[in-house]
Structures are given as C-alpha cells and as structure tokens.
C-alpha cells in the first residue's frame, strides 16, 4: 500500500503532529511543573525537582480533605463503570430485537448526551429537593413522622450523583454496543442454538467472548467519564465533593503548584485505567486471534 507520498500527505501529517502537540503539550507542562522544587512557582523555569507539592497535597491545607474525595471519586467511578457495562450490554442485546418504544428510548439517550449537562444537573437537584420537601412535610400524614423529623436529604453520591453520571455514560455505552452489533454475525448464535445451547449459554459462551474487548472499552468509558465528570456533578452530588469538584474549587485561587500536583494525581489514575484497559483489550484480541476467530474485532 505504501507508494510515494504526496505533498498533501506531508502537509496533513505535519498538521496532525501539531494537533497532537496542541493536545498534549500543555498537559505535559503541568505534569513536569508538579515536580517543582519547594521554591518554585507556577511557571517555568523549574526551580529544582522535588515531591514537595505532592506531600503538601496529601497533608491538605486544612480545608479540603483530598484523600476522602479521592476515595469517593474512585468508589463512584467503579460503581458507574459496572452499572454502565451491565446496563449497556443488556440494552444493546435488547435493541437487536424490535420492541415498543425502541426509537423513543434511543432518541432519549441521544438527547441525554446533547442537553447541556448543567441543565440535567439542575433538574436532578430540583427533583431531589422537591422529594426532600415532600418527605419532610407529608410523611407525617402517613404515620411516618419519625422519618420526616430526622430526614435530611435524599441527595447523595450514590443516589442523585450516580444517576447524573449514568445519564452521561449510558449513551456512550449504548452507541458502542450499536457499533458492535452492527458487525456481529447472528449465525454464530444460531449455530449455538442448533447445538442445543440455552439462551444464557449462548450469551455466556458465544456472544460475550466475542464482544469482550468492546465491553472492556465500555467500562473504560464508564470509569473515565465518571472520574472526570464535573458539570453534571456540580448541582447533583449532594453535600460532599468529588475530586474534579475539589480541583475546580481550587482554580479560583491558583497560587501554588500543588494544584498541578493534584492534576498529576488525577491524570495518573486516568492513565493507569486507560493503559490497563488497552492491555486487557489487546490480550483478549490476541486470544481470539489464537482461537482462529475473526469476529468481534470491534473498535474501542
């Protein structure tokens, strides 16, 4: 395929390289700067190399407990990841057959992707506020005065926060599932059925192994999108903060490189997850190749 390169190729290749530089340059700059020496400031040149700012970050400055938000974000991210995978795969399977409201559900998912995050977030906040008001004012009528008296809020990381994140990750999961099943050969399932497999066996031993690499991809989307999610969380997360919210809170007072250290830590988690996912996907694909199947070479 590699015949002579046209001038257009070189122009475009340089353009692409510049785009990549534009994408990564600034990020790399702050990763480097987070290792700034104790006397160092917010910009280059580096003033020695140290881990001062990471230590400072870990100790906290008395206001923000980074360790706690770190754990919260991690827990929420993992939950969102699992739910996104399970729900997307089930929905993806369901969409292969026709059912009532199919088109409606699909357009809802797309709309959920398009409606500005802040509005979704605001809506969820209102919904939960009204629910709280209702519980506090009306649960007494039902003989549940105890609950009404001690009730604070239904909003929280794993209620409103989780829901807000799912409205963001599920559409991506669903779209990836569509991409997979568009090139999935249903004859494989028929063959399994003809050999006497139950629907569950067919799914477990035929469908799942083939779509596994893409399912890992959905998990990757689920986790990373939740891990970095900010706009939807802003109103809907309840009384506690996630890591991105802490980070945003700090941007108004950027005076020391510890904010870069925080950025480096958050990114390190993202990159670990991305690398792990890519590694697993490669592994699964290689296993498929070894077994002589060319099905399910889905893109991530």
């Amino acid at each position, binding site marked *: *395929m*590699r015949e002579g390169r046209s001038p257009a*190729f070189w122009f*475009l*290749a340089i*353009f692409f390289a510049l*785009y*990549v530089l534009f*994408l*990564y*340059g600034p*990020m790399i*700059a*702050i990763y480097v*700067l987070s290792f700034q020496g104790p006397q160092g400031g*917010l*910009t*280059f040149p580096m003033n020695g190399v140290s881990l001062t700012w990471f230590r400072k970050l870990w100790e906290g400055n008395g206001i923000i407990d980074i360790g706690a938000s770190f754990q919260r974000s991690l827990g929420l991210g993992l939950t969102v990841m699992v739910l996104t995978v399970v729900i997307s795969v*089930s*929905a993806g399977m369901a969409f292969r057959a026709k059912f009532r*409201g199919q088109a409606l*559900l699909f357009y*809802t*998912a797309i709309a*959920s992707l*398009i*409606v*500005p995050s*802040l*509005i*979704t977030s*605001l*809506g969820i906040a*209102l*919904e939960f506020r*009204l629910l709280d008001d209702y519980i506090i004012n009306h649960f007494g009528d039902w003989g549940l005065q105890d609950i009404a008296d001690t009730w604070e809020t239904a909003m929280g990381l794993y209620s409103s926060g989780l*829901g*807000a994140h*799912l*409205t963001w990750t*599920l559409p991506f999961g669903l779209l990836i599932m569509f991409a997979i099943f568009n090139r999935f050969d249903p004859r494989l399932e028929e063959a399994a059925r003809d050999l006497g497999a139950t629907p569950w066996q067919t799914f477990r031993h035929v469908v799942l192994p083939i779509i596994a690499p893409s399912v890992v991809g959905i998990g*990757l989307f689920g986790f*990373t999108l939740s891990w*970095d999610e*900010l*706009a939807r969380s802003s109103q809907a997360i309840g009384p506690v903060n996630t890591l*991105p919210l802490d*980070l*945003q809170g700090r*941007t108004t007072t*950027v005076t020391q490189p510890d*904010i870069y250290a925080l*950025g480096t830590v*958050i*990114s390190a988690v*993202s*990159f670990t*997850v*991305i690398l792990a996912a890519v590694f697993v996907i490669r592994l699964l694909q290689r296993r498929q190749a070894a077994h002589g199947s060319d099905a399910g070479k889905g893109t*991530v």
Partner: protein
Amino acid sequence: MALVFLVFFILPLVFVVVVSFWDYNDYEMIPTFTTRGYTDSFEGCLAQLPELCTILKTYVQTLKFCAIVWAATLTIGFTVAYFLAFEVKSREWQIILSLICTIPFWTSNVIRMIAWIPLLGRNGLVNSFLQAIGLIDQPLEWLLYSQFSVILALVHLFTFFMVVPIFNSMIRIDRALIEAAYDAGASGWQTLWNVIIPLCKPGIVIGSIFVITIVMGDFVTVGVMGGQQIASAGKIIQTRLDALQFPAAAANAVILLGVTFLIIAALTKLVDIRKEL
C-alpha cells in the same frame, strides 16, 4: 436503562420547566404560578432598547463563542479526520493514531484547562518567549483570563467531538467514488469539495451539534479560563443557583434549552434541504 433515563433525565427536565414558573424568595421556592423567573431575567430589556440588556448581551457573547469555536473545531477536526481516514493507509496505524487523539478525552477537562496557565500566564512560556526574541516589551495581558483563552481552551477540549463523527463518515465513503472522480478528471480540491464533503455531511452535522451544545451550556471552561469574569449563558444559571434562586435558574435553563434546540433544528434542516436540492 429506560428507568434510569426516566428518573434522572426526563423527570428532571420536567421539573426544570415546572419550577421555572414558580415564585421564589430569598430562601425557598414557592409553588405558585408566575412568570417572574422569566421577567426578572429580562428585566429592563425593553427600557434599554436599542442598547442590549445584560441577558441579551450575554447570549450574543455566547453565540459569538459558539461561532468561533465551531469554525475552528470544524477546520481542525476535518483536517485531522481527513488525514486519519485517507492518508493513513494501514489499519494498525489508524487505530494507534485515533487512540492518541482519544486519550485526552478520557482525562480531566479541568486539568486540561489549568494546563494552559503555565503557558499563557504573565510570566508564562509564550510571554517569556516573545520577550526573549524581542517581539514585545511588556507581557501580553490578554493571553490568559480573557476571551482568547476561553476560546483556545474550548477548541482544545472539544475538537475531539468533531474528529470522531467526521472520521466515521469518511471511512464509510466508498473509495471507488473518489477514484471515479479522479478518473473523470476532477482535481484534488474538486474531489474534496464535490465528493468528500457532501458525503461527510452527516458527520459534520453531528459534530457541529455536539460542539455547539457543549459551548452553549458550558460554564466551567468560561469560568476557569475567563477568571470568573466573563459571562455566558451557562454562567447565568450557575450564578442564580449560587444565590439559591432555583426558579430563576430554571427559567434561564429553559431559555438556554430553547435557544440550543433552535440551533439544532436549524442545523438538521440545513442538511435535509441540501439533500433535496
């Protein structure tokens, strides 16, 4: 899935619309019908004509951001997608290079915003460099916490949303069509303009919808990169929320939603009309 969307998407939107017609005071919402949320937002708009009032000015500003960011992401996104789809011939490299473009999307937006600070700040790399080569004496103040930095960051963050759908359209184009165009004597530009671009139109429209809706609703980028000084449609809502004026925030959300849908409707019309011509 339907349940999740019902509870966390459809119902919340319904509440936004309902609450936008509620009254409010300093600390709570009052469920009586009023259009105060809307009238407050447009307060003094008629009186000030022909001068634009705050909210209209803000929307004009937001639309301006939209237009600039849209043009920039479309140009960059189309070029990058074109390179990936047509110039990179091996599948392996296509995957690797797409992955390189995708990885930043999986990392935090806020970090990618603050990443500009060491570059654009008063003593940042750009200013130091320009001063070192003697192009300027004073550091340029408009590099950071300005409209420029907001637009730069938006382009930086969201070009990805253009690249993916356009790339998707491009790899579906039958290569035989392009060869046919060349065989029929079309130049490279003619092929691009008359064959490739029309066939990429769905991708372009989808990408545009993504970019425009993101920019319309954005308040984080405008906040961080504008040093909390620049107004945008999203920031109005946020300010109202900080003041706990939920009905007013909801009213603004409805207005924003309306404007956004008008733009999307116009975009999808544009394509259909062209298809019929």
